[in-house]
């Protein structure tokens, strides 16, 4: 009877992951307000792909994926490569400080950013501009991407640092004897050695980006800044069109799985 230990997790996964997953596919084939449900085949998908608002959110999600992943992984990598030669005290400081934004993520910190990007706020004051930053996609999307990126750097820093510190030091010594410069070592030895960690963390960032909700909800709840998740929230929970929202949710699911497949393909070729 020792296998009872698997029971709780399997039951929870079945009830709260697999069952809803099945339901979302079924719901996507129905016209549904939850109370009345009518089978309409693929009409919700046709409607989603004919909807400029949804297509916009797909395009925006692609922007967010590229921007957030680049910023998060890029900054985390630079920080780790800078900190790796320093003493342990620095490693601890970097780990802790970069984790703090994670604690204040999403809805909690959003109001500070409202202030920073406010018409009369510090950013406009500093730049001497008068820009309503969230009033158009061209400034709103990068602003949101930046806010979101800041919260996820910490996890990547911790993972990269652990991977680097696990590398056998004698590899570096050998390279130094061969006359390699410190930055050459980092570029040609360290980065390739932690490539699996970089790949995994990039995928996590990329998966998270189209799911950004709270920052948009609090700062820029508009069609032109919406991620797919925010669009689905509006179509489902605000407009009560659950069938349509379910179809869009299935598209998001495919989008995210597509990212995973893409990452595996890139890694296999590298």
């Amino acid at each position, binding site marked *: 009877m*020792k296998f*009872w230990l*698997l029971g*709780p*997790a399997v039951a*929870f*996964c079945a*009830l*709260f*992951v697999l*069952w*809803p997953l099945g339901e*979302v596919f079924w719901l996507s084939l129905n016209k549904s307000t939850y109370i009345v449900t009518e089978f309409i085949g693929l009409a919700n998908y046709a409607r989603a792909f004919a909807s400029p608002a949804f297509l916009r959110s797909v395009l925006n999600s692609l922007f967010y994926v590229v921007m957030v992943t680049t910023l998060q992984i890029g900054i985390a990598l630079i*920080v780790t490569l*800078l900190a790796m030669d*320093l003493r342990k005290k620095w490693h601890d*400081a970097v*780990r*802790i*400080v970069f*984790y703090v*934004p*994670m*604690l*204040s993520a999403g*809805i*909690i*910190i*959003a*109001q*500070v950013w*409202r*202030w*920073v990007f406010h018409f*009369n706020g*510090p950013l406009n*004051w500093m730049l001497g501009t008068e820009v309503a930053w969230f009033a158009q996609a061209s400034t709103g999307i990068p602003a949101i991407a930046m806010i979101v990126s*800041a919260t996820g*750097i910490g996890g990547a820093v*911790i*993972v990269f*640092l*652990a*991977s680097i510190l*696990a590398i056998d030091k004698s590899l570096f010594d050998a390279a130094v004897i061969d006359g390699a410069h410190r930055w050459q070592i980092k570029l040609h030895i360290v980065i390739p050695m932690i490539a699996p*960690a970089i790949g995994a963390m990039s995928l996590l960032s990329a*998966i998270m980006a189209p799911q950004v909700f*709270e920052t948009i909800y*609090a700062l820029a709840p508009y069609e032109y800044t919406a991620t797919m*998740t925010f669009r*689905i929230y509006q179509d*489902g*929970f605000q407009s009560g069109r*659950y069938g349509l*929202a*379910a179809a869009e*949710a299935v598209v*998001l*699911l495919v989008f*995210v799985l597509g990212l995973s497949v893409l990452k595996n393909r890139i890694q296999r070729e590298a």
Partner: protein
Amino acid sequence: MKRAILIVAMVALLFPVWMMVVGSLQDIHGVFVMPPRLLPLKATLQNYEWIFRYGQIGRWTVNTLFVTAGYVTLSVFLSITAGYAFAFYRWKGKKALWLVLLAGLFIPKISILIPLFVVVRKLGLSGTLAGVVIPVAFAPVGLYLAKTYFETIPISLLESARMDGASETQILFRIVTPLARPIVTALALFAAIQALQDYLWQMLQLNSEALQTLVVGITRATMKRGGAETQVNPLGRAMAGGTMLVAPLLVVFGIANRYFTSALGGAVKE
């Protein structure tokens, strides 16, 4: 030079949190004084007073404690029971089950949220605090981290306990869990952060004001727009709300940050 860059980056990351605390202590004029002050111009508690007057803080705190305690207990229990089975047992179909349980990592949350309402209603949990906790308690990341950590425990320890007649349940809770205290603590902390921050799900699930958690109640109160009363200092109030939400997280993190960082770092060493 390296140190200088790192220090600038760390200051930049802590800046928003610091300015949130400062802003929460400012009146409407103080918030928009440029250049922004690093300390409040004329510290006032009026924003906090407003939140305490218009929010049911006592009630929301009790609800939050209940949700957090329930979520931490359940989520850690699910991760360590299944983690133990996956670390120490072999059976046919183990790999397939592992992939199914971890699939949640790649399924966007919103895709589950829409139909999860149906599931929660069918289970009779709608609009209750248990309905907030139970459906999201299973965390694939927690399972992954638990299993990875348990695998570092020598199996000979288990075997000698079995010889002494200990049951599997006893071994898990009396031997493995104490040995794996760092990871168990880390899982509890991750769960606590999740419970305190998960605005979207809690907001959708809890409509009645008496049942709200701090993150939902405070956010709703401070984000309400329109009406003369709300126009007094919306940013200051929102930042006061944010400060109240982040404070417990900072305390939790401050007490146990080494567990966080070692848990995340340990995950990549395999």
